[in-house]
């Protein structure tokens, strides 16, 4: 091998460097000057969906994650705790019932409660919340396709729609609502944080809609009359601009460059958003008008699939997860060290409804069918593998998390249907063999299991069961169309408030699909929706529950199980059945 001079030089050079570097090693390498990050008390939370709007009260923005972020970044006169009680937050302000007839409620925000830009939360903000949640200005008529819907809210507008234009207090921090008739859920009329609450700053909406300030917005609201769907008026351009900005202006998957679009009046404020990946909340430094948060920072990670959430918890990337409940997920979580499993129940529940027509027009047939439904087996087969302590749900109106549940189930007649009683069912049928078509979502394995168990048991009593299962895209369109005799599907208990009851059970109610018409229950519900006292409401609902059971309506089956888990380096996390989920006490979360 003959190398030229250059190569020899290279060789010498190489040997020299090697010799030099051998002494240097890697320890002698120049120390890196990488900058480090600083933090204190960060908690990671997994969310299934990606964040999409800073106004979770709109029709397109009301997803679970938007609601959770809205909850952590806003305050209200009240919040709902994990026992489904309304807890007043007097540090934010107070609301008081001035009179029962007409129902008059005065809301006052405390002085010093501020948006994160330093603006006092004022009557204008309350007024905007009222305007967006009352449909006061709407004059649209869906059938004739006339008129305008201004604010595209996700909230139920039926309550606030009963009010006149609010009276604004002289301190400019209060409004008084006067209802034309009593409204049972008046306490929830202004929603709660992240759910139709005082989430949107009026001064920002005013500015963005081309108005001078919040006062100009109040003047605009004052100047427009109540809309009447029977006599629609031309669109009010300025109001439309305001409403449009309210409806869509806060939609954003990333952090807007204009900080006015994500003002906070709650414990936390959004610091950063990475589209479809993560969202970071930090303390709102001015906040002292509610429970004080412990953690400095909360990082929300978007993780869609349940196994991915569990693995992220295991790898320490998040500290709190709320995956879709399944037996696999529970097993995976149980196998983890240093992780607490929280098992609870959601507010959604599966139920079997019998039509009050066709073969089921006869009450005895309905009763007989109900006697054959193996509710305990259904719970055993579907829910026990997730939650070993699950039991059948025994009330049409309450869930066990509500205080009134225990009393109600004692007397509502559900005790008759604890166990299958084929003999009694046969007796009631007296030799008849009615053909029953049961409709359900056959793409939902739980419903298929429930159907199979019911079919097996009902056949023993002499029922002929027809499988009316439909695909997931089709079944719901058939609800209430009479193409079936019984159906198995899910509903969501509202947890707090009573206006959901007539929606399902009143004659002609919007979700009364099986044609229940009980004069007794109707009368009680008429009274219920104008009863403003909580104890009285519970009493009425208990009576309604019993009245419904006595008509052999069908059976509630079980509540959907809820699975959450958190790292044992975190404290303060509790199960919560409603849509706020673990976030309800975000201020209690702390890193140990």
């Amino acid at each position: 091998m003959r190398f030229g001079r250059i190569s020899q030089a290279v060789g010498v050079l190489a040997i020299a460097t090697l010799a030099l570097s051998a002494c240097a090693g890697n320890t002698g390498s120049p120390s890196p000057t990488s900058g480090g990050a600083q933090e204190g008390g960060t908690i990671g939370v997994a969310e299934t969906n990606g964040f999409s709007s800073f106004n979770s009260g709109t029709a397109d923005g009301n997803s679970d994650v938007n609601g959770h972020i809205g909850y952590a970044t806003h305050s209200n006169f009240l919040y709902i705790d994990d026992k489904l009680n309304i807890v007043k937050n007097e540090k934010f302000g107070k609301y008081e019932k001035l009179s029962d007839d007409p129902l008059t409620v005065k809301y006052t925000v405390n002085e010093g409660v501020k948006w994160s830009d330093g603006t006092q939360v004022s009557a204008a903000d309350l007024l905007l919340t009222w305007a967006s949640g009352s449909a006061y200005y709407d004059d649209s008529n869906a059938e004739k396709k006339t008129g305008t819907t201004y604010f595209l809210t996700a909230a139920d507008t039926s309550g606030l729609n009963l009010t006149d234009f609010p009276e604004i207090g002289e301190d400019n921090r209060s409004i008084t609502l006067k209802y034309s008739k009593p409204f049972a859920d008046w306490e929830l009329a202004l929603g709660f944080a992240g759910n139709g609450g005082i989430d949107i700053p009026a001064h920002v909406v005013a500015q963005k809609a081309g108005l001078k300030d919040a006062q100009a917005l109040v003047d605009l609201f004052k100047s427009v009359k109540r809309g009447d769907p029977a006599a629609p008026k031309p669109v009010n351009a300025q109001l439309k601009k305001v409403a449009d900005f309210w409806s869509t202006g806060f939609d954003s998957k990333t952090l807007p460059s204009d900080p006015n679009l994500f003002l906070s009046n709650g414990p936390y404020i959004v610091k950063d958003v990475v589209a479809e990946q993560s969202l970071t909340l930090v303390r709102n430094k001015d906040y002292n008008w509610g429970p004080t948060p412990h953690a400095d920072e909360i990082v929300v990670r978007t993780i869609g699939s349940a196994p991915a959430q569990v693995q992220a918890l295991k790898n320490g990337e998040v500290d709190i997860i709320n995956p879709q409940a399944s037996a696999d997920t529970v097993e995976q979580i149980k196998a983890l060290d240093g992780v607490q499993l929280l098992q609870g129940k959601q507010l959604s529940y599966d139920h079997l409804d019998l039509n009050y027509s066709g073969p089921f027009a006869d009450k005895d047939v309905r009763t007989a069918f109900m006697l054959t439904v193996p509710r305990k087996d259904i719970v055993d087969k579907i829910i026990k593998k997730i939650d070993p302590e699950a039991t059948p749900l025994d009330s049409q109106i309450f869930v066990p998390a509500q205080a009134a549940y225990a009393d109600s189930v004692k007397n509502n007649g559900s005790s008759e249907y604890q166990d299958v009683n084929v003999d009694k069912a046969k007796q009631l049928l007296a030799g008849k063999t009615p053909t029953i078509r049961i409709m359900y979502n056959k793409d939902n394995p739980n419903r298929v299991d429930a159907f199979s168990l019911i079919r097996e048991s009902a056949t023993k009593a002499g029922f002929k069961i027809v499988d009316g299962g439909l695909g997931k895209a089709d079944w719901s369109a058939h609800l209430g169309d009479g193409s079936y005799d019984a159906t198995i599907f899910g509903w969501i208990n509202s947890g707090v408030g009573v206006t959901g009851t007539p929606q399902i059970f009143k004659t002609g109610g919007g979700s009364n699909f099986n044609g229940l018409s009980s004069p007794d229950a109707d009368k009680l519900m008429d009274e219920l929706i104008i009863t403003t006292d909580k104890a009285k409401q519970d009493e009425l609902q208990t009576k309604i529950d019993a009245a419904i059971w006595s008509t052999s309506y069908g059976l509630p089956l079980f509540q959907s199980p809820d699975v959450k888990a958190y790292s044992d380096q975190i404290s303060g996390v509790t199960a919560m059945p409603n849509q706020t989920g673990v976030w309800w006490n975000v201020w209690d979360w702390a890193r140990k």
Partner: protein
Amino acid sequence: MLSYVVRRLATAALILLGASFLVYLLTASSGDPLADLRASNAPNRQQLMDARSQLLDLDTPAPLRYFKWLGGAAQCLVPFAGTCDLGKSVTGQPITEALGIALVQTLTLVTGATVLAILIGITLGIVTALRQYSALDYGVTFMAFLFFSLPIFWVAVLLKEFGAIGFNNFLRNPVIPLPVSLGTGIVLGVVVAVAAGGEIKRRLISGGVVFALVTAVMVYFSATLWFKNPGLGPVVIGIAGVGMAFAVTTLVSGLKNRKALQASLIVAGLGVVSWFVIQPLLAQATGLMIFLLAIATVLVGVGVGYLMGGYDRGQSMRAAGITAFLVGGLVALDRFMQAWPTYFNNSRVRGRPIATIGAGTPNLQGDYWVLTIDTFTHLILPTVALILVSLASYTRFTRSSMLEIMNMDYIRTARAKGLSERSVIMGHAFRNALIPLATIVAFDIGALIGGAVITESVFSVHGMGFLFLDGITHIDPNPVMGVFLCVAVTAMVFNLIADLAYSALDPRVRIKA
């Protein structure tokens, strides 16, 4: 040629129109967008249904809605007008914006994986073709098909369990027990001995060397807690650089071209020198700087090759250029390793660097090196998963194409006239074997934009696949159409490019207008 392109584009536009109409109708009729609300017991059920009907314009029949959509989409053809309107999703987000976000996520996820899969796949394909029916060939074929047939969600979950969670646990105290070191050494030694080929003695020697080397390195790593404080240092860079110089020269020009070898060695030496010189500069690194440095490195290599000259100056330049790039890569790798402890101990990372989800640690702050490491630690698992499952097609494709070429007459001629095996393979066979790959690569780029739905969902990356799936589940045609447009246009354009490239690559193919 021009008229051919125009004709192709015109057909493509027609196909696009027809296909988009079909996809729109199929999506719109795939279900009932109001299904969940119909079963709702919310007191404002009707109000919510009205709102959604209005948002999705459900009162207009789907075929008419398509033309409304087309009207908006047609504006995308006007360049720079900013009037592109692909509608809004069910959450009210403009599709153009959603596509922007999803494209970035998908491309970060799949680009690296695809490029690596192509490089590794082609290499393995060539090697197995040259050693047809050897133990190596069977081994690679077996592994490729094994990974090809594994469901990716399972591979991905296993990778997360062991590659992320297990490895992070290991990093807490990175001590490798001696039996593990020995075992790994034995396994790798046996693999190399089997794969090496040649006579028994040669196999035993290569296997033994690999065994000794691997075991020694692992014991060293364990003893020095190398994984906590990794680094190469100039010694390793120097040794590896010399090795690379030889390897690259062998492939590019053959070791007989002394000038090329010398140029490569000089460049390797320069690389070690530069390691000392460049550290202060690297401390201020930005992405652009690294890019420029990479170009400069290659230029220096080419320059050295030019100065060395030789009877084939081009070969020297190529060999030195490639060596320079590789050694430069080592220097960068060493710098990444220097930044590793900073990253590892960062309070955001909490000593668990390999991530199972997402594309980055939220709120991480640091210099270029720390942030880039963060991207790597997030991308490594999905990339490995995607490479494993897509390796098979490239390997098999290249192998069969290479085998076919190796049996051609002109290869026999080349051998007969006395060319070295290296120039037969590298100069005559390899290039021609790559021509059919143009098709498969062009196809894969279309698939690349379409996203990797399952991988995306396992690793929580909200890319194109997610957007598509989300649109389907909500019976919302707009996001589906957005994804469809992107994928279809890319697929068609790249198909056209593949056809044109064919005629450029293979003189036997001529495009006649």
